[in-house]
C-alpha cells in the first residue's frame, strides 16, 4: 500500500510541477541574467536594522500600556504592534528572497557551480522561509509578545524533556550493568 501511495504521489507531483511551471513561466517572462555590475551591487542586500526587533517585540512597552492605558488603547496597541511585527517579517523575507533570486540569476551563468554550495544555500533559504512563516503564524494568532512567550515555553518544555530523557537513559544503563541478586542467591 505504501509503494502504491508513493507511485501515485510521484505521478501527481510530476503533473502538478509541470503544469505549475508551464503556467507560471507563461505569466512571468524570464528574468535576464546578471552581469558583474549587478551582481556586485546586489551583493549589498541589506536587512531591516536589528534595533527594530527590540522595539517591536519589547516587553516593556506592553507592560507600560497594560498598566496605564484603558482597554481600548491596549487593544489598539496590540493590533498596531501585530501589524508592525508582520510588516517587519514580510520585509525581512522580501530581502532574503531578493538576495536568493539575484544569486540564482548570477549562478546560472557560471560554469563552475558547486552542488554542495547550491544545496546549502537552497536548504538555508527553505529553512528561513519556514521559520518566518511559523513566526508570522504565531504573531498573527497571539501577537508579538504572545508568540515570544509560546516559543519560550515550548523551548523550556523541550529542555525539560531532554533532561528527563537523559536521566532515564542513565538509569536504564545502570540497571543493565547491575548483576541480578536472585541468580547469585540460587547458585
Amino acid at each position, binding site marked *: 500500500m505504501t509503494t*502504491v501511495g508513493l*507511485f*501515485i504521489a*510521484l*505521478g*501527481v*507531483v*510530476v*503533473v502538478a*510541477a*509541470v*503544469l505549475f*511551471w*508551464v503556467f*507560471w*513561466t507563461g505569466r512571468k517572462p*524570464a*528574468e*535576464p*541574467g546578471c*552581469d*558583474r555590475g549587478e*551582481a556586485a551591487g546586489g*551583493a549589498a542586500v541589506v*536587512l*531591516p536594522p*536589528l534595533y527594530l*526587533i527590540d522595539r517591536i517585540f519589547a516587553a516593556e512597552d506592553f507592560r507600560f500600556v497594560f498598566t496605564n492605558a484603558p482597554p481600548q488603547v491596549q487593544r489598539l496597541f496590540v493590533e498596531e504592534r501585530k501589524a508592525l511585527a508582520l510588516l517587519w*517579517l514580510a520585509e*525581512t523575507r522580501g*530581502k*532574503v528572497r531578493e*538576495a*536568493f533570486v*539575484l*544569486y*540564482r540569476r*548570477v*549562478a*546560472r*551563468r*557560471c*560554469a*563552475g*557551480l558547486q*552542488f554542495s*554550495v*547550491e544545496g*546549502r*544555500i*537552497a536548504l*538555508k*533559504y527553505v529553512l*528561513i522561509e519556514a*521559520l518566518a512563516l511559523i*513566526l508570522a503564524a504565531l504573531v498573527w494568532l497571539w501577537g*508579538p509578545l504572545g508568540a*515570544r512567550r509560546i*516559543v519560550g515555553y515550548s*523551548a523550556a518544555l523541550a529542555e525539560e524533556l531532554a533532561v528527563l530523557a537523559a536521566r532515564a537513559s542513565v538509569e536504564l544503563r545502570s540497571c543493565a550493568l547491575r548483576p541480578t541478586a536472585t541468580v547469585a542467591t540460587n547458585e
Partner: protein
Amino acid sequence: MWSVSFVPWWMSNVMLGLLLYRAVRGRFARDYPLFYLYVAAVLVRELVSFYLYFADPGARQIFYWYTEFVLLALGCSIIWEVYGKVLGNYLGAWRIARHLLGIIYVLLSAWVLAATVGGSLSSLGRTTVVLQRNLRCIQALLVLGVVILVAYYTIPVGRNVKGILGGYGAFVGTNLVTLTLRDHLGRQFQLWWQLIDPMMYNIVLLVWCASLWSYQPNPTAEKAVQIEDDYEALARQTEKVMGKARDYLLSVVR
C-alpha cells in the same frame, strides 16, 4: 472499423500526422530529431497495430507490448533531448543536473538492491504493467529533475521545448498513476484505464500540435561568463545575509 471507440484513436493518429507534417513543412524536424523520431515511431506502431487488429489479433497483442517498450526507451530519449536543449548552454546547471541524475541512479540502485535482498526482484517486472510502471517512474523522476532545475535557475525556454516537456511530463505523470492503479486494483480498473489513457494522450497531442505548430527555439543563451571569483564571493555574501536573517528571526523568540 467505424466503431465509436475508434474515434479517439483516429484523432490521435491525425494529430501525430499533423505534427510530422508541420515539422517537415517548416523544416525544423532536425532541430528536435529524437522527439520526431518518437512521434514517427508511435504513428507507425499505431498503423501497423490497426492492420494486425483485423489481420491477426493474436500477433497484434505481442507486437503491441514489444513496441511499447521500444517507445518507452524513445520516451527517455525525448527527456534527454530536452535536457540538452535546455541546459546545453548553461554548463553550471548541467553540472548540477549530473549530480541530480547521480542521486536518482543511486536511489534506483538501492531500490533494486532492496528488492533483490528481499527476494522480490522478480516482482519489479512480474507483469508488463508493473515493468511499464517502473520505467515510467524513472521517466517521472527525470522530468521532475529538469523542471526543478529550469524553474530554480529561471532558465528561459522557448515555446517548442516548453510544449514538449509540458506535454510529455503531464503524460508520464498521469500514466504512472493509471498504471499503478491498474496493477493495484486489477481488472476493475481496466475500463477506466482504457478511458483515461487515450483521453490524456489526445490532450498531450493537442498541446504538442499547438506548441510545435511553428518553429520557436529557446531564447539565445546568455554568454557563459567566467565569474568564478564573483560566484564564490556572491555565494559567501548570500550565505551571510541568510545567516543574519536567521539570527534576527531567532532573536525574536529568545
